[in-house]
């Protein structure tokens, strides 16, 4: 039996650069009309065809993407910023139309593309529940049946008759998520919203997502948070520059994602402070990996070598208290550890860690002792900001490197060595009797 909930064939979406951002003006339109009319005689005289639009101004946000999602499947979409994830979701949720290709959707689509998607700020929480139901094409009676469950999950009973513009962001997302999950769309599209809220709410949302999937609802999840993807999804696809780079079991796709970092040779550099990750307080300049035996960056490090991770950043606001840090993830996106130059976190006191910075370019270096990590591939998510909690500049999994087992510890054993880390620990054994 054909049980495909979603089929995408050769999907493409093109944007004209600058075109979709600038507003058209009617006066310009009239002006162009007038110009064209003025040019008409000369154009009719010459036999040259009208100049075609150049391809240089076209940006293919998605190009020739095909995939299928089975009913009841929880499907992940991963890729870096600008890889086309958002465009794909907008096409699937019918907000915008494709330039080429075909989409078949079986069932009602509910989408949660951002915090508060489909909320009307002037309406109360209660009215917004009905509004969102109406967006799914549900009738008032159908929505009423779910109303109590939605409100109970979102914990907003007391504020039901308050306009949502007065809600805190936590209440906002709780209500939005609760609506999306409880109105039982047949296909649920979720973008980057599982990572918001406190830990308790995150756990709750994850449980709901699993529950939604168990009910037979097809879910499409887009996230930068790889543990979310590996936890929830069975299959995933990887987008790279608008093209489908991988499609298959989630572990394999995540591994491919980490394997194809933007980096070559253990470093990534952003040269333009206007476009580097971060914003007007601080921006990242570069992230480099090397082992201490070498001065240049390298993505290949021996298991017995000390590793140096260098993060350089521009401080753009005078007297900002900053510290640098990073999270290290392994090939299945398990966080190995998070560290920072902040005073109590750094083993050695860092002169600048958490201290007020003048405007300028800074470089922080962290040393990971030899024999800490196991062999395999690791990805770095650098951040700079107020400690761990408020990263102003952050770049998810931008740089990956390999730890190679050079055999010092192995002796005669050549099989897989289990563990996220592989510390070299002292042992002593003595005979008891």
């Amino acid at each position: 039996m054909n049980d495909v909930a979603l089929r995408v064939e050769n999907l493409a979406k093109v944007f004209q650069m600058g075109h979709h951002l600038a507003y058209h003006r009617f006066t310009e339109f009239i002006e162009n009309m007038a110009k064209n009319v003025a040019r008409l005689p000369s154009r009719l005289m010459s036999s040259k065809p009208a100049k075609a639009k150049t391809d240089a101004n076209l940006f293919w946000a998605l190009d020739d993407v095909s995939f299928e999602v089975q009913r009841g499947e929880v499907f992940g979409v991963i890729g870096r910023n600008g890889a086309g994830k958002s465009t794909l979701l907008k096409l699937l949720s019918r907000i915008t139309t494709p330039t080429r290709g075909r989409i078949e959707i079986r069932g009602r689509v509910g989408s949660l593309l951002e915090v508060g998607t489909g909320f009307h700020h002037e309406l109360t929480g209660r009215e917004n529940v009905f509004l969102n139901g109406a967006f799914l094409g549900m009738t008032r009676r159908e929505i009423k049946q779910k109303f109590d469950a939605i409100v109970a999950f979102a914990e907003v009973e007391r504020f039901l008759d308050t306009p949502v513009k007065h809600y805190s962001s936590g209440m906002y997302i709780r209500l939005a998520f609760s609506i999306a999950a409880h109105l039982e769309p047949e296909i649920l599209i979720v973008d980057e919203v599982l990572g918001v809220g406190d830990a308790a709410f995150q756990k709750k949302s994850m449980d709901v997502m699993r529950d939604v999937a168990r009910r037979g609802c097809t879910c499409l999840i887009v996230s930068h948070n790889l543990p979310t993807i590996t936890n929830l999804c069975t299959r995933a696809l990887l987008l790279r520059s608008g093209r489908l780079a991988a499609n298959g079991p989630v572990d394999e796709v995540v591994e491919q994602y980490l394997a194809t970092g933007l980096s070559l040779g253990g470093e990534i550099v952003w040269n333009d402070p206007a476009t580097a990750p971060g914003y007007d307080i601080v921006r990242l300049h570069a992230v480099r990996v090397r082992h201490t035996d070498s001065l240049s960056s390298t993505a290949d490090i021996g298991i017995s070598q000390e590793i140096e991770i260098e993060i350089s950043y521009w401080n753009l606001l005078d007297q900002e208290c900053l510290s640098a840090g990073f999270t290290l993830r392994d090939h299945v996106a398990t966080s190995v550890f998070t560290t920072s130059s902040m005073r109590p976190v750094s083993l050695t006191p860092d002169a600048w860690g958490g201290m007020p910075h003048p405007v300028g370019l800074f470089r922080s270096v962290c040393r990971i002792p030899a024999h800490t990590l196991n062999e395999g591939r690791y990805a770095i998510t650098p951040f700079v900001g107020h400690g761990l909690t408020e990263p102003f500049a952050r770049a998810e999994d931008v740089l990956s490197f390999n730890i190679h087992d050079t055999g010092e510890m192995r002796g005669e054993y050549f099989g897989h060595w289990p563990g996220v880390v592989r510390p070299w620990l002292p042992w002593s054994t003595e005979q008891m009797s």
Partner: protein
Amino acid sequence: MSSLADNAASQRSTEGTRLVVIDAARAASWFDWRELWNYRELIWILAARDITVRYRQAVVGVAWVVLQPVAEMVVFSGLFSLLGKRPAGEAVPYTISLLCGLLLWQLFAAIVGSATSCLVDNRPLLTKVYFPRMVLPLAVCLRPLVDFGVGLVVLAGLMAWFHVAPSLALLMMPLVVLATVITALALGLWLSALNAHYRDFGYIVPFLLRIGFFVSPVIYETASLNIPTQWHLLYSLNPMSSLLESFRWSLIGTAGPEVIEVVASLVATFLVLVTGAWYFRRVERFLADRI
């Protein structure tokens, strides 16, 4: 790019779930009544919000709705009595004829005005969630209709005061109102799409409405104008002229428009409606990318 049309067709598949096909290679189905019907709840919610915002404080809401036509009524009837001219027939007091015109024009202008900005005002919704975009111009029709109902009560009071009784023609009044709403909506489809595409179009609309106010028989009756016969047809191409005359005819028994005028204005409205729906659908496809 524009040669590649899209199509979103929905149909029931065999298992009973809805199948939606979006195909960039197929020609656009230019109207989807059933989908619009499926989203009637949304039209109602958006309209209900508009109405509750206006009438949340009932007294202020009603006073505000009544104030504008009544103030204009006072100004124009005062003006014409000072001028010693009477731009209307003798059968009923000018004040009543004037208020009839003002109320129907207000209904028309309010729908056209709010339809023009409905897409731009709802940008956050348009870029984040799917629904048939035509829901928005349809939803803005309802609040002006409620305002119009409140105005009718004032008019009825005024008619009772001057002892003007309507005839059986009153039964035609709802049809005239419906035709006015459709005319306004037809223009609204054009203007909302134009305003979404060309951001400065919104500035032109109040100006056009002001012109329309004076070239349509709002503050005068057509019969009191000396229009050369060769211009009659052109005059009646403005749908509002025969609608205003029909409205007066149904309420206070003044001379109605001629049949040929009604036909001309219906044809004009129909053309604007069909082309408006076509243009709206065209703009709709790229709305989220451009708005």
